[in-house]
């Protein structure tokens, strides 16, 4: 499966990655080869008999009890942010 430049641009935008026009051909080629590998797997005659794998390790989730175990570290975490005011993380205005 081949990928066109418009698709690469769109994926880059969804992932919030800045991609220069000059990089598009190489990226399209690389992503196309990744998809070709997936196509090859899908085409393998016995692949459908295998249960889809959710996780590479054969293990189930470990659960914790419903207990509040966290203490308040708000000041430390807020201090890490580029900008914080009034105990809020501040970001450029987002308006829907």
């Amino acid at each position, binding site marked *: 499966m081949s990928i066109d430049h418009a698709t690469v641009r769109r994926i880059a935008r969804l992932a919030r990655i800045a991609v220069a026009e000059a990089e598009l051909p190489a990226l399209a080629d690389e992503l196309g080869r990744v998809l070709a590998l997936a196509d090859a797997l899908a085409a393998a005659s016995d692949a459908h008999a295998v249960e889809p794998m959710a996780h590479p390790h054969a293990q189930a989730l470990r659960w914790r009890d419903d207990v*509040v175990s966290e203490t*308040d570290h708000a000041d430390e975490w807020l201090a890490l942010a580029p900008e914080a005011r009034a105990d809020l993380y501040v970001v450029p205005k987002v308006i829907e």
Partner: protein
Amino acid sequence: MSSSALNPQPAALGTWQAVIGLEIHAQLNTASKLFSGAATAYGAAPNRQAAALDVALPGTLPVPNRAARDKAIRFGLAIGARIAEQSIFARKNYFYPDLPKGYQISQYERPIVSDGRLPVRLDDGRVIEVAIQRAHLEEDAGKSLHDAFHAASGIDFNRAGVPLLEIVSAPVLHSAQEAVAYLRAVHTLVRWLGICDGNLQEGSFRCDANVSVRPAGSSVLGTRTEIKNVNSFRFVEKAIEYEIERQIRVLENGERVVQETRLYDAAHHRTRPLRGKEEAEDYRYFPDPDLPPIVVTAAEIEAIRATLSELPHARRRRYVETLGLPEADAAQLCADKATADYYEALCAARPGPAKPGADANPAGGREWAKLCANWVLGELAAALNAAELPIEATRVTAPALAGLLARLADGTISGRIAKEVFAAMWAGEGDAETIIAARGLAQISDDGALAAAIDAVLAEFPSQVQDYRRGNDKLLQFFVGQTMKRLRGQAHPQRLNALLREKLGSRAEGRGL
């Protein structure tokens, strides 16, 4: 329950059929978050309940909360759904400042609950079965505050990571009224099961509606829009109604409905576009590599099933079929578990007769059940409303109210006096017996006392007695009134009537008239 009478279907709907599916987000009432040990309590100061994981600091890993899983299973069992022995958490990728990881942990393929159904009673008494396609676990996002700062938004991550159960109905609802009835039924159920507090104002129960319209008789779904931002049952109903009418207008003008997310604006009763769906929809789900599959054993499912009590629709049916309550009473009593349980306790707390010789069962079981229903839905509900108290905080307990109703049922007091006694009980003056005795409110049904009063009245009004005996039957009420007045309203009305007729009649015979 709702305003179907006030909101008639638009006339144009005749040639169109609305198709509605709801996505309900019920916040699971756990103490800690879905993947961190931070508290979930509502109303804390900003960011004080956000752990390193919730603000997505590097190096943190999610550890899931068993109680959230068990509450999801509880819901699944209550709607007769399939509980997946193995389900998986997936990452739903999108970019927004209140989602610091860049993805929400949710479920996509293999949700924990699928293929359930819920009986829903409509306002007109019809019951429909609504198919619930799935219910899955996911974490909530943080909260953006757009008005906090000039030219900047503030983010509070206290809500980030709070467990949600997203309940997705099939597109099987065909009017705003059906959608709201279903929404209310889910609201009742999650509170009944004790898995969600159902508080709409605080956002612990939210709903998005997918609405489309198609020509009546068609089996192809039309293009749908999604309405967000509705936080009351009334607004859900109005928003869906508006959206159905808008789509019909668009189609009848020969235009096409655009697939998009729309916000409901309650102030102007309209919906407006939020954003085009094409790009936002591209969530690039994939299984979360940080979280192995959720495995639930049959034994764990059975252990949860064993803790389920009678469900609201079953209880409603029992009240109608076994207790003989009217449908509307049963539905109102079963709207929340605390009320239904109070009613249950009240019915069961019927004390024995107080007076020797009184009929041990003066009212049949069904009459008692109906009397109890009347009082829970009438006097008690009014008192709770006035005091702005939930029924859990009632000042008159079920056994106490049973004591009062027993005196009403056996004729010790009248309905009017019972209300007075109830008010005194509510004010904390003691139990019914104490108040009746202290205020001398017991009805006089002793024939000797009644007869003496009647004789005095008949002696006082000889000309009226003559008129009555000449055939003016209406005067009986006059004698009843005068005797009641003499006895300060405490005469047992049926007994008084019978004695009066007897005396007026017997004298007449005595005089040979």
